[in-house]
């Protein structure tokens, strides 16, 4: 055995093992969105069961909570009551809540809202998922928080809770907006 060369073997192994060990610390499913900190993509979406159209441009000066959901989405059920409650709490303070129906039919959406016991904020229709894609949506539920200047300050993947919403909205309403992702 040539032990000096053997030592070289350890030297070769270490970077490979280091890379694998580093890989173990990563979550391949956690893909950061490039959106927070940027201007929120414009949209003009019809309201479900109403003749109105909601345009983001008209909402400057107000904080917007944009929640993407679908009737076939299980996790959307968990966050629905929190969202409805948050909407009643924050609407008076100038926060606008919208639920964008993703990849679903109006009939299914309507039935779902009825089943969940109503919804305190308008549901919007997104035909062909154009708005969903422009917000870089992976799935539902995802929730975007847009500040008074039309900048995305937060993207929530998965169900959102009342306390999370409160901790995100309060600073915005007090004018100390911070960008987080």
């Amino acid at each position, binding site marked *: 055995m*040539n032990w000096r060369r*053997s030592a070289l*073997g*350890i030297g070769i192994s270490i970077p490979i093992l280091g890379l694998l060990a*580093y890989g*173990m610390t*990563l*979550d*391949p499913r956690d893909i950061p969105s490039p959106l927070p900190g940027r201007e929120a993509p414009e949209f003009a979406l019809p309201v479900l069961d109403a003749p109105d159209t909601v345009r983001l441009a008209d909402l400057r000066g107000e904080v917007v909570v944009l929640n993407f959901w679908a009737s076939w989405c299980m996790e959307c059920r968990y966050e629905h009551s929190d969202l409805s409650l948050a909407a009643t709490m924050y609407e008076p303070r100038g926060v606008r809540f919208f639920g964008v129906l993703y990849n679903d039919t109006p009939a299914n959406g309507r039935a779902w809202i009825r089943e969940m016991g109503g919804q305190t904020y308008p549901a919007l229709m997104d035909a062909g998922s154009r708005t969903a894609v422009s917000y870089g949506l992976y799935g539902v539920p995802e929730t975007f928080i847009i500040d008074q200047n039309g900048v995305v300050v937060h993207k929530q993947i998965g169900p959102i809770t009342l306390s999370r919403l409160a901790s995100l909205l309060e600073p915005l309403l007090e004018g100390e907006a911070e960008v987080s992702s």
Partner: protein
Amino acid sequence: MTRIIGYSALVAALAVASYGMIAAIVGVKRREAALIRSARSAAYTCFGLLTVANLAMIYGLVTHDFSIDYVAQVGSRATPLLFTVISLWSALEGSILFWGWVLAFYAALAMWLTRAKLGALGAYANAILLFVSGFFYLLLVGPANPFGLVSPVPMDGPGPNPLLQNHILMAVHPPLLYLGYVGMTVPFAFGLGALMSGRLDDTWLRVTRNWTIVAWSFLTLAIVAGMWWSYEVLGWGGYWAWDPVENASFMPWLTATAFMHSSMVQERRGLLRMWNMSLIIATFLLTILGTFLTRSGVISSVHAFGEGPIGMFFLAFIAIILVFSMVMLLGRSTELRSDGHLDNMASRETVFLLNNLLLTAFTFTVLLGTLFPILAEAVRGVKVSVGAPFFNRMTIPLCVALVFLVGIGPMLPWRVVNAQDLRRKLVKPALAAILVLAVVLTVGMRDFWGILAFTFSAFAAVSNIQEFALGTAARRRAGGGSWAESLWGLMNANPRRYGGYTAHLGLIMMVVGITGSSVFRLEREATVRVGEVVQLQEYAVQFQELWARDEPHRFVVGARFDVLVNGRLSGEMNPRLNYYRARGSEPITTPAVRTRAHKDLYMNLLAFEQDGSSATVTVITEPLVVWIWIGSAIIAFGAFFSVWPRRRQRATVRAPRGRHEKAGVA
């Protein structure tokens, strides 16, 4: 009870493997034959214990014993019996249990076949085999224990992952894969045995030569069965997506293929000793790395089994194996220096060197592409993807070059080439290549690499067939008999060579199938109402009705289409969506495939109106797909043929070969 028997068997196996490993090493150090013998018995005992554990699990699955953790995880009373049995390998713990069984079988077989013949080398190989086995038993006793207790005992379970119970190929692909993957442990163990014992001649190589070929054949079949499965189940009409799991099975295949060729150079010329050792170590490490990547959640993948503490165990295991084999390999590098010599640059040896170069570059490219997302995130902090477009762009040229070598190799004799012979042998393959080139250009093919792939395939096919033809003709002249008899006699006289050429022909078929199905693939997506027609080339499919069927474990929705070929009714196709009750709402597709030798018609149901009025389908035509499946069977036939045990008829067998060699297969 079943639970306790199974778990006890695993604990016992861990103890026995640990003992056997120590006994083998101490036995060599103290020169105690009795200890070495008892270490060998440990290998047999482990196989017995793993058999008990696996049978216990199968019994638990079949009897729906939901007190067993694994059964509660993948079992369900509604699942058909066959799928219940094969759910043994449909989730992490069960697949490791099955892995342990296969490994124990191989280890016991290897020890039995080499018993008392190899001295220290064999004892060290046994120690390595028991160490690797022991690692898997440790997983089974600890973090991946399939026999955990569930309390309270559930009444029913969710059944296996729907993707894995949706097609019969799932009964075939995993066992083949494990037979191939795990089989690579044996040559590795004997290689390390050689390094540890210092017996660095060709012994380890000769002992494990056939192992490698058998494991390689299983791996080939497994990879193709996996391709076929994704073609028949996933619904996108493709069979290879360069998914990390696919890459993980492909990399050891590439290095093992390189090894099968380069080991011949060592046997013949005494060259490449260090290289062959490196290749067999790399092959084994790549099987473990692949398992780590897909079982630890480092890289997400369609087939990934989910995460857990198991990743840390694998990492530690890889660290031990990698460092130990690197230390042994480099420590012995001066002793592994080649004592051989090449007569001429233009010889078969050189083609094998080039083959190894290309396969190494190929493996490196796939490995780099698979790991690059981790590297990029480490360096740049940005997530990137490396997918099919990258791999295709980087590896297709290598594939095409390899096909060319498959054609050139058999023409060149060992040692020195005779220019006249070579020229004579080049004529027919070259003509075939030119003819095919002219045809594909005439029919309007414009894909550069596709054209080259077809052209070189023709060249390589004729070149390999020519070897059979020349050999058969020579044999007929010498001994008479019919063509078929002479051909069979020729193949049996030199099974390794002609088995190899047969495998080449299978590979060429696969290349033709892959090229044809990817270059000439046509796809159309449409939403049709009842009675409406989608037309694609000579095919027209007419939507007849939407049907639904209630089965115990799933609900099936199908769309019935009549298939018309050139306006003539030619059967029906029923692409389906399956809703597995216990597993949420995401439906699993079952595409309808109409397979013909020249072209497949493939239909996938994407969506439907709930009143049955319309359906959205993808219609795909893919020429020559079936050649891929047939080609792989031919490869496996060739490989198994080359190692099939024959009665030794040295005198009668040698004579024709001697002539054959001298005449340069003329």
